[in-house]
């Protein structure tokens, strides 16, 4: 096939109708730019949702005693040396935390609430939201700190504040209820009110003392990067025989579903935008082909093969797409750059927070996504050219010449 000739003719035919093809190009550019930007926002949202789920004391992987998930309590525990660390050779581990987490009741003079009482080692909690949440008052000093940290929202419900004492009741390891007083060291402000009302923290040693057992109910491990998850899980399963090793998707199925939905949304959004565009492209190409049907008839009359005519139309469409995609991606990335750290959604923040997202929607452009958009667009360009190409060769050369 005389590729060079076909290419030359395709490009010149595009240039011959600058306005028409310019409009088409503009449409491609806008669509691609919109897809690239939207895509990066969806990815940002997705990452935020995953981060929120992971930071939500879950971590990427959690080790639990069997049955803990169905009926959480101090009885479902396991022993672990307090200086335990992940085996060497597990790459990508960002940190780990060993906790005691038990259901409890918290009481002030004004109210009583059911909560999750969590004993933590503050030095290990760099991996959870605890380290990044805004804090009024003081943080916990260390694992033996016997004060508590409660959420701002819970403090409001209980009508209590910094420095006040609260009573917490929970079951001990022996099955008997324990009751103890705790002083409020700090009030945390998390992204979601739900969390603030749910979690109350104290030093893990203090909680172990209260329940009367030097055991843990969960080991949470966080990774730098999600892809290392699978390998880590395998290692942990070997290490903790008899315990449950679960990743965040299993622990937070709703967030995981949203995560998968975001993957799909990327594609849905692409096909909605580009799908509409394809009709325009087909129309432009059909016009272009029918306009020079005599010329194409002549080419075939003098011996050009139908497949070369098809190639000519396909190349024409591909060139249009290629330029549109290149400029569109550049524009999209410029738009992402212009968004900077993100779009502030705090106006709608209530609805947004309930989805486990943050109020700042930040774009996260992924190279793979941009590549996928580019390749899919080019693929669509080829698909869109097939019908016009078929129109070009359907007609016999003689009939075309007579037009």
């Amino acid at each position, binding site marked *: 096939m*005389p590729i*060079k*000739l076909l290419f*030359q003719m395709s490009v010149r035919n595009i240039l011959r109708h600058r306005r028409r093809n310019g409009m088409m190009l503009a449409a491609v550019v806008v669509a691609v730019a919109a897809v690239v930007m939207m895509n990066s926002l969806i990815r940002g949202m997705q990452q935020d949702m995953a981060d929120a789920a992971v930071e939500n004391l879950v971590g990427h992987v959690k080790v639990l005693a069997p049955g803990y998930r169905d009926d959480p309590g101090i009885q479902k525990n396991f022993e672990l040396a307090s200086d335990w660390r992940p085996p060497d050779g597990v790459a990508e581990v960002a940190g780990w935390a060993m906790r005691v987490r038990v259901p409890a009741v918290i009481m002030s003079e004004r109210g009583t609430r059911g909560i999750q009482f969590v004993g933590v080692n503050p030095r290990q909690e760099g991996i959870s939201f605890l380290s990044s949440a805004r804090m009024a008052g003081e943080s916990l000093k260390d694992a033996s700190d016997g004060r508590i940290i409660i959420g701002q929202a819970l403090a409001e419900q209980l009508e209590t504040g910094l420095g006040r004492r609260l009573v917490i009741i929970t079951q001990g390891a022996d099955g008997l209820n324990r009751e103890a007083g705790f002083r409020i060291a700090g009030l945390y402000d998390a992204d979601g009110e739900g969390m603030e009302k749910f979690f109350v923290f104290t030093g893990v040693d203090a909680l172990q003392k209260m329940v009367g057992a030097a055991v843990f109910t969960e080991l949470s491990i966080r990774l730098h990067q999600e892809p290392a998850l699978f390998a880590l899980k395998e290692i942990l399963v070997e290490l903790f025989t008899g315990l449950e090793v679960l990743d965040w998707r299993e622990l937070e199925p709703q967030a995981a579903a949203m995560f998968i939905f975001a993957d799909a949304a990327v594609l849905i959004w692409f096909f909605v935008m580009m799908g509409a565009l394809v009709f325009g492209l087909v129309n432009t190409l059909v016009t272009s082909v029918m306009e*020079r049907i005599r*010329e194409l008839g002549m*080419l075939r*009359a*003098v011996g050009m093969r139908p497949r070369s005519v098809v190639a000519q139309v396909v190349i024409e469409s591909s060139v249009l797409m290629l330029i549109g995609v290149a400029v569109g991606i550049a524009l999209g990335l410029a738009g992402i750059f212009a968004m900077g750290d993100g779009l502030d959604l705090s106006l709608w923040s209530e609805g947004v927070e309930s989805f486990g997202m943050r109020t700042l929607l930040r774009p996260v452009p992924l190279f793979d996504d941009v590549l996928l958009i580019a390749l899919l667009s080019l693929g669509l360009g080829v698909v869109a050219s097939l019908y016009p190409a078929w129109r070009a060769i359907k007609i016999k050369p003689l009939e075309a010449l007579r037009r």
Partner: protein
Amino acid sequence: MSDVSVGNGVVVDCAGVSRTYQEDAVPVHALRGVDFQFARGDFVSLSGPSGSGKSTLLNLIGGLDRADAGTIAVDGVAVNALSESELSDLRLHKIGFVFQSYNLIPVLSAQENVEFIMQLQGVAPGERAERAVESLASLGIGELAHRRPGELSGGQQQRVAIARAIVTHPVLLLADEPSANLDSGTTEELLKLLRRLNDDRGISILTATHDPMVMGYAKRRVVLRDGAIVEDSAN
């Protein structure tokens, strides 16, 4: 495929060629059993009233259409038996076409319009350019090589079309009303040119025409009426 094969061979041999079109279920007999031989190096004009079947015969010989009955051999090859792609190759390598309305590619320059057919044939770029330039020059439009068809007069465009048709050294040049869109002065120039190509280079030419001037320049004159040859005479 040589332009100097002025032999006694037969370039085109038609025997009992018929072509019937179905127009709204009414059969139109465009050709009714035409027998026609065409010697190598000849220059034949095909005339006759409108609708007598001139274009039809030319298209059948050029492999652009298929006969319903009879046989056509071009340069010894039975055209009837060829597949579409073989016909395509026959047109590309053995036949030069000159159409009534020039049919140049508007986005290509005169030279590129002549070159592309060699690109289809797979001729090397250097040789292509050389032959195109030479072909245009031999038709007296060498200096217009870089203009596009839109920047050329009708006569100039028709010369480019002829340059394109002969640059491949076809066995046969088929021209359907090549002068229909030209004034008489330009037509005469065109005819001198065709005659020169025929005399000097031995290119076999078959042209359908209404124009007495064209008939006058041809060496042999064939007249069709109602799809049959009614007259066949040497000039």
